[in-house]
């Protein structure tokens, strides 16, 4: 019988712990498909964050390191600078990347580290039960903004792709979403392009994936996808924020 659909080799057989309707599973699969298609599992080293994806080290079948909260880009730097021929990616959430790890993210980009970051932005801290994140939208209710995010008190969300696009060191930055089939396909293209940027030795690449957290948003999976489309995409417009792959010389 012909196999028409199967699990990518770059994913292990371990069942994930993600909540029903969470989009981490989709992004894991897309990352794994790209690793398979580019034939890089053997030289890949992934860096897992602290947050919902902390146990990604059990789900990807390449070598994996679990980083302290926010430090994945620094760990990835240490690996890549030690093994320049390896393929190094981090997989991080918004609290990890845009709050406690802001410095690590910005400076890895500024240095033009030849690594790839997969950035899951779901506007909330998922693992700890739904606290306000640096990407939580104005007026969004979370456990630690129970009356809605008051921008006069706690300021505004951080738009990472826009901010990083000002850095000469960053080579490829794209924001995508996994809310529908069309966007899932676009996300895969973005991840593959980012991975190819690293393989070509052209420096820092990051793909920001607008994602859902039905559990902590208090919505059904479908309603969460609607909320994403109605609220997140207008605030975080999708698109390529930086592409200097054709200008950059191979490292």
């Amino acid at each position, binding site marked *: 019988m012909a196999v028409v659909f199967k699990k990518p080799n770059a994913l292990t057989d371990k069942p994930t712990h993600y909540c029903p309707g969470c989009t981490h599973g989709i992004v894991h699969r897309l990352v794994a498909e790209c690793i398979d298609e580019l034939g890089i599992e053997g030289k890949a080293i992934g860096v897992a964050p602290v947050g919902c994806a902390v146990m990604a080290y059990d789900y990807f079948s390449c070598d*994996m390191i679990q980083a302290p909260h926010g430090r994945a880009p*620094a*760990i990835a*730097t*240490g*690996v890549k600078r030690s093994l320049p021929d390896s393929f190094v990616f981090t997989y991080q959430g918004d609290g990890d990347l845009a709050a406690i790890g802001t410095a690590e993210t910005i400076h890895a980009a500024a240095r033009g580290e030849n690594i790839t970051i997969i950035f899951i932005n779901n506007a909330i801290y998922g693992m700890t039960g739904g606290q306000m994140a640096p990407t939580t939208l104005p007026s969004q209710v979370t456990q630690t903004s129970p009356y809605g995010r008051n921008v006069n008190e706690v300021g505004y969300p951080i738009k990472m792709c826009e901010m990083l696009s000002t850095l000469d060191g960053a080579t490829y930055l794209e924001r995508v979403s996994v809310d529908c089939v069309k966007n899932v396909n676009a996300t895969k293209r973005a991840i593959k392009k980012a991975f190819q940027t690293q393989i070509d030795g052209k420096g820092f690449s990051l793909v920001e994936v607008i994602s859902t957290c039905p559990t902590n948003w208090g919505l059904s999976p479908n309603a969460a996808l609607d909320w994403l489309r109605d609220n997140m995409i207008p605030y975080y417009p999708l698109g390529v924020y930086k592409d200097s792959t054709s200008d950059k010389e191979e490292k």
Partner: protein
Amino acid sequence: MKGNEALAEAAIQAGCTRFFGYPITPQTELAAYMAKRLPKIGGVFLQAESEVSAINMLQGAGAAGVRAMTSSSSPGISLKAEGISYMAGADVPGLIINVQRGGPGLGGIQPSQADYWQATKAPGHGDFHILVFAPNSVQEMVDLVSHAFDLSDNYRVPAMILADGLLGQMMEPVEIKSSDEKVELPKKQWATCGHNNEREHNIVNSLFLQANELERVVRERFERYKVIEENETMCEKYMTDDADYIVVAFGATARVAKAAVKDARAKGIKIGLVRPITLWPFPKEELKEVAVNAKSFLCVEMNMGQMVEDVKLAIDCSRPVEFFGRTGGVIPTPAEVLEQIVKLSGGEQ
């Protein structure tokens, strides 16, 4: 050669090819030396955006299986505490140099030994130890660097050279074993360097959500610590055979103490010196041995007496343990220590 530069060259000769650091006084020359030397030998010097990043870059390099180091001074080591704990928890080797200065807080930039507790008791959160070496000369710093790298690799435990601003800034003649041959490093089957489709994936990780599993992992590590305590403890004993009184001092302070011991001997006081070279593991047995014939002990340190409790515990509080120290960056003089020794011996000369 200046102490800081000697540390750097010794690391290179020991096969260290990756250095990650952040500027801080008084370790400055070490990083500057690495910035000059490493690119010439195909290595990597990288100035990180913070001490936090530098220790995590070290963790990444260590996990990738290469020999790497970071260096800092006291306030910077506090920032590295998180990464040191993660390295210990994931059994990642690596060398951390602390060229100590006065504290707490921003403190000062003069020599100090006030990070003894931090290095030996709590270099980060959780149940763990790191190897801590306390050299007392530029030559010993050089010799301990390669030894520290080897033990760190063999036991998969992070190692620290606990130097101070005095040793870092001091110029002394030094012999560094240099060889044109590449240093043969031990094979690291556990390293995350890409499985090349030839083995199962390796995971470098310190997360164990099941309490029983975490307990098992920590206990296994403490079994390793027991082996280290039995085999890797280092200390120097000087004129202790017939000693009625014992001075205990480590690092640069031990040089001052040794001069005072010589002066006291000239006065007829039967005194000796025990100098712990490893601060963890601490030379408990050696201290217990000298306590059999000694009447009392004197700890001399550049801090407020952080080692005293370890000496008391080592000798089961069987003898009085006095303390003399200067802190804040003040270096004790041999005359000051001699005065304390005379006092300790009850004036008998």
